[in-house]
């Protein structure tokens, strides 16, 4: 019988030096991500989700609800992003597919599709404003807000965790470019 070494997981920015200073930039550990599609008007779909998520299904684009270690984020009229611990993805997928039964809904593992960059520091909003046409001011995008937007040439799911911290969820293959772009934008705040 063959024995294999323990699998080693890697993320796209694993080898990049962290940006640390008045602003810091780091790649977050890989999280579990599930792309959900369904009809918010279909009670079977809503019930299947509420079995896992206490509280109402978010139906406003950008709205996000948290439940334990997981969160559910409305990305479009029929699209949600479920975020959970990486280890929980397999069970979550199985549970959801069971719960969906015959209703027209899908759950797809996209944990590896994206990685998340955390940008922190006083000038976080200033840096973001160099990359996105979205209003990222404290008034237009208060702490807790999230949006799918364009940053430089990337599509990004942007989550304003706090006033001084944003998490940017970006495609694996766009991550290095976005990282470099953020470093350049942060330059004036990090001397």
């Amino acid at each position, binding site marked *: 019988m063959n024995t294999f070494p323990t699998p080693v997981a*890697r993320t796209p920015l694993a080898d990049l030096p962290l940006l640390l200073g008045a602003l810091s930039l780091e790649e977050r550990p890989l999280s579990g991500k599930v792309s959900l*599609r369904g009809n918010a008007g279909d009670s079977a779909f809503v019930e299947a989700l509420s079995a896992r998520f206490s509280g109402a299904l978010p139906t406003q684009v950008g709205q996000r609800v948290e439940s334990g270690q997981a969160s559910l984020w409305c990305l479009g009229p029929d699209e949600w992003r479920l975020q959970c611990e990486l280890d929980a993805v397999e069970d979550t997928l199985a549970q959801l597919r069971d719960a969906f039964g015959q209703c*027209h*809904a899908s759950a*797809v593992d996209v944990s590896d599709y994206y990685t998340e960059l955390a940008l922190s520091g006083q000038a976080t909003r200033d840096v973001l404003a160099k990359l996105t046409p979205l209003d990222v001011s404290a008034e237009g995008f208060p702490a807790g807000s999230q949006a799918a937007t364009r940053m430089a040439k990337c599509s990004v799911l942007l989550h304003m965790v706090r006033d001084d911290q944003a998490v940017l969820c970006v495609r694996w293959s766009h991550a290095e470019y976005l990282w*470099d772009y953020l470093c350049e934008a942060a330059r004036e705040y990090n001397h």
Partner: protein
Amino acid sequence: MTQDNRLPAGGLIDRSRTLSFEFDGKTYTGHPGDTLASALMANGVTLLGRSFKYHRPRGLLAAGSEEPNALIQLERGAHTEPNTRATAIELYDGLNACSQNRWPSLKYDIGVVNSWLSRFFPAGFYYKTFMWPERLWMTYEHVIRRAAGLGVSPRLPDPDRYEHRHDQPELLVVGAGPAGLAAALSGARAGKRVVLVDENPQLGGSLLGSRDTIDGQSALDWVAGVRAELAEHPCVRVLTRTTLTGYFDYNYLIATEHVTAHLGPQASDDLPRQRLWKFRAKSVVLATGAIERPLVFADNDRPGILLASAVRTYQHRFGVLPGRRLVVFTNNDSAYSTAIDAASAGVAVTLVDCRDTAGDAAERGADAAGVTRMMGSAITGVSYRNGLQSVDVMALSADGTRVDGPVQKVPCDSACSSGGWNPAVHLHSQAKGKLRWLEDTHTYAPAACASTMPHSSVGACDGEFSLDQALNAGWAAGGATGPAPSAERVASIGALRPLWVVPCDHPVGEGPKKHFHEFQNDATAADLWLAQREGFESIEHTKRYTTTGMATDQGKTSNVNAIGILASSRGITVPEVGVTTFRPPYTPLTFGAIVGQNRRHLFHMVRKTPIHDWQADHGAVFEDVGDWKRARYYPKPGEDMDAAVRRECQAVREGVGLFDASTLGKIDLQGEDVAWLLDMLYTNAWGGLAVGKCRYGLMLNEHGMVFDDGVTTRVAENHYHMTTTTGGAARVLGWIEEWLQTEWPDKRVHATSVTEQWAVMALNGPRARAVLEALTEDDVSNDALPFMGFKEIQLAGVPARVFRISFTGEQAFEVNVPARYGRFVWEQMVAAGAAHDMVIYGTETMHVLRAEKGFIIVGQDSDGTMTPSDLDMDWIVSKKKADFLGKRSLTRSDTSRDGRKQLVGLLSEDPSLVLPEGAHVVSELRAAPPMPMIGHVTSSYFSPNVDGGRSIALAVIQGGFKRKGDWVDLPLIDGRRVRAKVVDPVFVDAAGERVKS
């Protein structure tokens, strides 16, 4: 050099520090707070450039960004920037500037012969003189561009950094003069998110060059108070040194902020030189002020003749005056302030007013200050010899068309004029706003604006020239309650006498004296009349024929004068002439600002697979495929590409090879109607596909043309995994969504991109299974996982999806693992493959191997005009299906006709000759092109596996299927003529046995 023209006191400059700078190789000094223009004026330098067409000497006209003459080549080498206005360059220590458009030197300029020959350079001279004979235009153009030009563009890469930044103000205020400051303050007090931009380094606008009082304090103290209050508001952003250059649809505006440009080359490594702001503003207040227009009198372009308001600005803002004996020529009251203020500073001032009387207050003030007034008079000539010597003044006739009586010579060393004021309506005009003609001040002011670009104009840019009104209007636009700031009501312009062309002692345009209305493009009143005589009556035609108001100047000082001149000569009213459109940019902006951060590695993303770094570490040579970097081949020491690819190709056919296929597009499809959807998307039938099976398909667009291909696998009852070409991933997903959303919204299908979820490794070759088996305990035998089968297994401890699909014709396994394990599993495969002499191969080998099998690459062997039939793939087009996308187009007369280009194989007569891809196949060889072309080579390689090693090619040739066995001719681009035999495109394993082994 001493600053002889510097006044002993006054100005907003820091006299405690002295800055040194160079202009045309000479060293001068100035003070912080100076512009290059004010510092040169202080040093008595009046000659700053040569004019565009006639190479006449030119000096300063203005004090702001409307300056048309003093265009400067700033700095040298990589940092050089042409066409910067001396009036907008803040002085810094070590500044190096040069005048433009002169050769060999500014003082002795050979191009001045253009001026003596000026009757050969009339309006439209480009069109008239040089378009014939046509073949010489290229020669003419070269000479003309050199002779009539602006600055020199930099030859070296720009070493500076630039960036873009977005902002979304509720209220964007453009201009920080009295009206703009009042608007910003009002908006701030109303709690709005305000952005205030101004092109000057300080706030204040026109207040910086005046002696007004606001709310009982000096204007400058009031400005300081406003600045302090705005700084307190957290939602207010004040951007100085920032020029709003463009106003676009839906209140999208751009502005260039000079972040460090005013500090000199590479002042900071961390800050950008310039920052381009992109505003999306809820509302916009334009408070851009007004630009004074000159009077169009004889030789009014001589250095030392400025705008009246500019002289006043130089005095109050910079503590400098252009001379000791000043002549002020005006048709309105506003220039009286200039005369009075200059006289108060000890300058001998003569005021020439074309009116018989001025306003009471103006006359009283002038008399009290000791200004000599010459009423009802006009300047009819200028003596200039290395500086102004005197002006000629004569009495003006009542109708303004003649001058009479004796000539009075007024000695002077400087002069200025005021012909009235033009509201700076440029941004309003860019925003598609209309203009209205003001009868009392004889100028254009903003009227209605487009609903998609809501804004208001306040203060002088709205044609409201009194300070009090400007403050009121600005305050109201800002939205605050409470009383507006107030100032003494001053009728600043008084009764203006329109005098579009000032007559002189010879008919205008027929003697030696020139009457310029447009300085930057060297256009005179006579040019306008000529254009009119030649039929260019429309103002837009006149503008282009005479170049009035074109290019970087955009008619700031000239536009209304030009329209007035045309109106008076045609005997119609000014509004009847119409207006031209002002276009962005308001002032030129650098390419650096336009590009921003988006250059070098930030120009575009480079997409890399999870296995990329391993490949780079192991000597892969990469190629660009879409945005991706893909390993092309892995040369061993001493190998070139050909050698490496031959080795890799042979190893795969004889043993096993490993290939990174992660870039392939992947789409997860779920729902009851996926099978139905696949039947519509692909040409073949999908109904019978069992769970765990894969099938290849071709996608057509509505025109029946192949646009993508790939393998789709049924992984569960209503769950499929589709693959697309690398470049087609986004296009196919968009295609699916478009049909689902627009035509088939009732179909139950969800499509989710999973391209980057999976790292994909393809094991190909007779020993592929052996490598796989070393890494799994699951059964991957031919029975358990046959050709076109699918299975989920544990591979090296990682959950993997394995597809038995092949792009080489060999036994093959496409292994998909979550991207995070891509590198790990790859390394395990490399280790396991060592026992089987496994080769790592790249895209070049993949291309050769698939060509040996006659497998197409969409986009290489097809070009958007190929049907499945053209590609000899009729076998994959279902004859039974009722419909699929593109089906109806396959029976159109053109798609079903004979003689279409068809995909065939080609074997060159010389087996060592690899035909160039793109080489033409001709039906008849001739001595020289053109030759009747019947097709071209689409793919061509050296194959080590065919006939013990020979070249192979794929080609599309008219009626190719029927030509199999024929010889065709290919004239190559290097002159060689070669022959090739048309053959079947499958060169290896025609029976297709190996793939099933």
